């Protein structure tokens, strides 16, 4: 594609496009950050079932990636994020968030420590100016490298076996650790991470090796139920795992118009990430203040009566006082429960009297329901195989 004529392709193909297009029987495509991505390849239920029963591949390429490199990389990232980066070993991955000075969340993501001085930050939103400005005074370079990396998520009970069959000695790899193997003319980085809450891996390589990687995996997975999944199936799995998505479960500060919609890590139940002792990080003072008085909001998992998903439902206390909003919901095929993630007024987390107002459009009429909602622990679903090392055979 001629760079000047980029506008002719507002939705770019990812490096896996030749394969995803062939596999996408529904033609259900969606825009994810300017890329063509599949919402459902063939059948949503089959795709979700593959995540929990066999294995799935999901094209991760549109995830935004930054390379952070330099002698001060650790110091910089320790300043940028509330988590302790100095404790992150080379070859490890950290789930993390970062905030503006007021402590409001900008994004969440995963931080990969590739070497002593080189990191990769993967996230949903674009932050180059923020990262560059934050890097002032640190000896680091920050480079946006989204298009330089092709990434595929391989998730499900048979995923380890598929990697073994693909010739990768995966048995020693623990959760949140990564390894590198030669692949084709280049290299393949494998991290034991994912967004499904199940046994799974994320595979990272260069775009030229994308199609060989896909083919190699498909071949290795032929007898192990491997199938491509779209973002709809992934969304059900991530809800079951209780993971949040920036822009869905909270509005990132740099695009948030309404001040009352800003959220801090404490509001979002992410206080456990914060290392209060490590010293200064952006947003610390504001968060300290908030910690002292307690956050106004909580982020919770809910189980809701009935079987009708409560997407976008308003939550009430005593069926009449507004208490919050459901940010994501589904009927969980794995748990056979009606689950939801929600922003809830912090003072009501323990309330036994919470209700979700659900409108179900059925043949042009709304069935309007007030359903009882109970705050439950997250993750809703966390199978033992997720962390077992070496992974069980299936």
């Amino acid at each position: 594609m001629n760079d000047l004529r980029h506008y002719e392709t507002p939705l770019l193909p990812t490096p896996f496009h030749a394969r995803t297009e062939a596999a996408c029987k529904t033609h259900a495509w969606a825009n994810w950050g300017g890329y063509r991505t599949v919402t459902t390849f063939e059948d949503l239920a089959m795709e979700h079932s593959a995540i929990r029963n066999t294995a799935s591949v999901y094209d991760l390429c549109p995830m935004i990636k930054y390379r952070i490199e330099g002698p001060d990389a650790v110091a910089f990232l320790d300043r940028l994020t509330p988590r302790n980066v100095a404790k992150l070993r080379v070859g490890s991955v950290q789930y993390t968030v970062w905030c503006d000075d007021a402590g409001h969340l900008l994004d969440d993501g995963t931080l990969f420590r590739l070497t002593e001085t080189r990191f990769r930050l993967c996230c949903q939103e674009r932050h180059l100016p923020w990262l560059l400005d934050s890097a002032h005074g640190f000896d680091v370079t920050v480079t946006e490298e989204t298009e330089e990396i092709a990434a595929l998520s391989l998730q499900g009970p048979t995923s380890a076996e598929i990697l073994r069959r693909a010739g990768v000695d995966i048995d020693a790899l623990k959760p949140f650790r990564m390894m590198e193997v030669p692949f084709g003319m280049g290299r393949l980085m494998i991290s034991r991470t994912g967004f499904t809450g199940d046994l799974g891996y994320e595979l990272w390589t260069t775009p030229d090796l994308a199609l060989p990687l896909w083919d190699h995996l498909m071949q290795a997975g032929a007898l192990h139920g491997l199938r491509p999944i779209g973002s709809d199936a992934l969304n059900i799995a991530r809800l079951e795992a209780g993971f949040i998505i920036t822009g869905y479960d909270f509005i990132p500060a740099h695009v948030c118009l309404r001040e009352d919609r800003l959220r801090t890590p404490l509001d979002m139940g992410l206080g456990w990430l914060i290392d209060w002792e490590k010293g200064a990080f952006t947003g610390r003072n504001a968060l300290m203040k908030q910690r002292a008085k307690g956050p106004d909001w909580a982020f919770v998992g809910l189980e809701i009566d009935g079987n009708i998903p409560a997407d976008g439902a308003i939550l009430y206390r005593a069926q009449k006082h507004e208490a919050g909003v459901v940010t994501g919901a589904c009927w969980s095929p794995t748990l056979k429960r009606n689950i939801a993630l929600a922003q809830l007024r912090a003072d009501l987390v323990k309330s036994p009297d919470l209700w979700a107002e659900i409108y179900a459009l059925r043949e042009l009429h709304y069935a309007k329901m007030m359903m009882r909602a109970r705050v439950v622990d997250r993750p809703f679903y966390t199978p033992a195989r997720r962390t077992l090392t070496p992974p069980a055979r299936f």
Partner: protein
Amino acid sequence: MYDAVVIGAGHNGLVAACYLARAGLKTVIVEKNDWIGGAAVSRELYPGFTYSNCSYVSSLFRPEIMRDLDLPRHGLQILPYEGGALMTRDGGYLGMFRDHESNRREIARHSRRDAEAYDRYARDILRNCRLIRPMLMRRPPDLASFHPRDLSELLWLGRQITGQSEAALCDMLRFWTMSIADFLDEYFENPAVKAYQAVGSIIGTALGPMSPGTAYVLLHHAMGDVDGNVGAWGYARGGMGSITRALADSFRAAGGEIRAGVGVQEVRISGGRATGVVLANGDEISARRVLSNMDVRRTFLGHVDRKELPADFVKRVERFKTRGSSGKLNIALDGVPRFTALPEGAPNIKGDLHFTDTIDQMERAYDDWKAGRFSRHPFQDVMIPTMIDPTMTPPGKHFMSCFVQYAPPQIEGKPWTDADRDAFAKTCIDQIEAYAPGFRDLILHVEVRTPRELEAEVGLTEGNIFQGELTFDQMFFNRPVPGYANYRSPVKDLWICGSSTHPGGGVMGAPGRNAAREVLRDLRQPVDHMSDAYAIV
């Protein structure tokens, strides 16, 4: 005997008249020109070609007014447009795209950092829009008054402002007073990106992008919308004159009367009250009240007996800044010009085109204005609405609208001459030719308008396109002058309803609507036929 006579059939006069007529007031509009529309006018100056002779794009025109007055049913259609490009001196360009990702990739061609800075910038502009939009359809409070309505308006304003966090308040105050150059420096690094974003901050303004106050002018151009798409601009199908044509139709349908071709000589005043108007041909029209759509200086310094006005008021009106800074070329074209920087078939040509690629260059253009000259390298906002609108020209032919900054009200202290005007036109055409070789050969006809023509024809004092500059010192309760932001004047029953009043210029309709509302309030007439501003949620 009329209930109301409106001086001037500009869009604000028409809007006011429509609302009055719909409330049952017997209303007449007197327009000096043979045609109506003021600065929202479309005339055919070359056979088969309809021009937008003054204003050329629509965004500010309030949708509440379009609905109240049934304008779509009277023929009004606003067309969204795509595209836009700023040509750079090195032969490249920076395009504008409606699609978010295309726009990001386009900026990334110039600066990857700026590409990712755009969202935060857009958020901040939009935040300010959300603050100001509710104020457009309200009468500003008089700060010195203890009238319950003023107090309640003041309270409302206070609540809007105190509803903000301290940080947002600081940002708002900075934004309303700072220069666009400083504002953009907080987000962007690339000169072309900044130059493009600065476009809306100097249009119609006798300020340069480095002058304080220009960030607000940007907001004034960003606070409108096309069908809820805030900041977007569109074309009025058939030219901007179709807005005033639809208003005139709506007015007549409500029983209104328009008398065009003879202007008002003087507002008739007796016993301190306006009782009608005397026309240039000596005719008199009696009315219970007079609304002037002329700018505030023309109204009070030209058409009202000074003896009827307090000296202090006159002095304030004399000081009201109406410095002209803009000119315009309206061009009939034999075909589509080919801009060498743009790829063949690029959609950008359907939008706004510019040829100044740095803030510095724009500021230099302003330096010429300060010295009393038109800019040697002018800033132009060039559009070819016929790329989208099939009704204005024969197929394959085009109408090009070139809005130009800066053109001073006088050339080095002397009135514009025809030779000055022609030199101005040549400068603008040469600039386009440099980016689109062969452009000149496509020209069938050019209408050139300097501040001289704008003043003579539309009556805009000194050629100021907004009937008074949009600087903070003459906005809100200070527009046009303190104590008279309520559309009234020192003369009882003489009202002002043009762009000189809150919330200011542009084809917005809000001044006319707000003025009519005040008139009806005074009459204790119901205003059910007027929508409040659509809620911002």
